[in-house]
């Protein structure tokens, strides 16, 4: 079981490093990195704190602390995915509105140019 916790710790550290590296290279924006960093830190804390996990497992009513850990990871990442779904939906709505506005503005500009050219 210790090996599992060690692997999770390594995964959490790798996730933090990848996110920080992406931030440095501007592949990911700061406001969008917060969810991933929070998820990675939660994973790190849970994988290193057996006592906390045991308490959480007892509170939930689980006998196995690994099950509590998996439940915790699932909850955290579901939260992250939901947050990003909302962000992506908002961005898509904005993209649609902007695309339509640009098209309408270009259309009106084109019409105005044609009218001006038609004037003697």
């Amino acid at each position: 079981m210790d090996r599992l916790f060690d692997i999770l710790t390594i995964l959490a550290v790798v996730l933090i490093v990848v996110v920080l590296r992406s931030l440095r290279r501007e592949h990911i924006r700061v406001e969008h990195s917060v969810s991933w960093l929070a998820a990675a830190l939660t994973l790190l804390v849970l994988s290193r704190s057996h006592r906390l996990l045991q308490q959480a497992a007892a509170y939930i009513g689980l006998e196995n602390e690994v099950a509590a850990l998996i439940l915790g990871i699932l909850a955290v990442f579901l939260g992250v995915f939901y947050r990003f779904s909302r962000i992506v939906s908002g961005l898509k709505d904005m993209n649609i509105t902007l695309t339509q506005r640009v098209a309408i503005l270009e259309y009106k500009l084109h019409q105005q140019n044609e009218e001006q050219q038609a004037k003697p």
Partner: protein
Amino acid sequence: MNFQKTLLLIPAYNEEGAITRVVAEVRALYPDLGILVADDCSTDNTADLARAAGARVLSLPCHLGLGGCVQAGYKLAFGLGYETVIRIDGDGQHNPTDIPRLLAVLHQTGCEMVIGVRAKESGGLQTHFVRKIGIHFFRFILRPILGRTVSDPTSGFVAVNRRALAVFSRSFPLEYPEIETLVVLQRRQFSFEEVPCRMRQRIAGRSSITALKSVYYVIHVLLGVFVNILRFDGRSRKAPAKR
């Protein structure tokens, strides 16, 4: 027929094989009718051909899908003060000789939308088997929601008045709009009528809804219908008197 304040909207995506004939046919029949082709960022020559055939073209810089493309046309028409917009497909399936009948019903009944439907008395549902199943399924689903039967809820041959334009330019289903549009209208306590039309074979290209995509279509539209019911429930009760 007087087409002042009336616009014909043709949403098009990669319709270079058909758009010239569609625009030319409408122009020959109704020279006074304004034609707007909403080009959904086609990768072929749709926009240029439509322009050459005599249509005005609204070119979207990104591909939005049918709903986003139609809504862009509705927004422009609403902003320019049009009273009526007729929408036909860019593949030649809809016969423009039916346009005056749609407009006549729209004006005579005072309803907000008229749908040109593939009706039995005018040649029946001339479509593939999977789509027929989908149409029957949605007829069944929509009947209790709308309180009436719809012959062909998937038809894209529609005429709308300014009241519907005002609503659609603010809120319009984006991916597969036809069925959800009916629910949007119903939640606003708007009404619609149907006019039987004989649909033709498409001039070129294929339907974007293949047999496999039909499954996704059904799930997507079902979800959209129920989301629309929830979304507009509060507002529909506050809707102002219609006419």
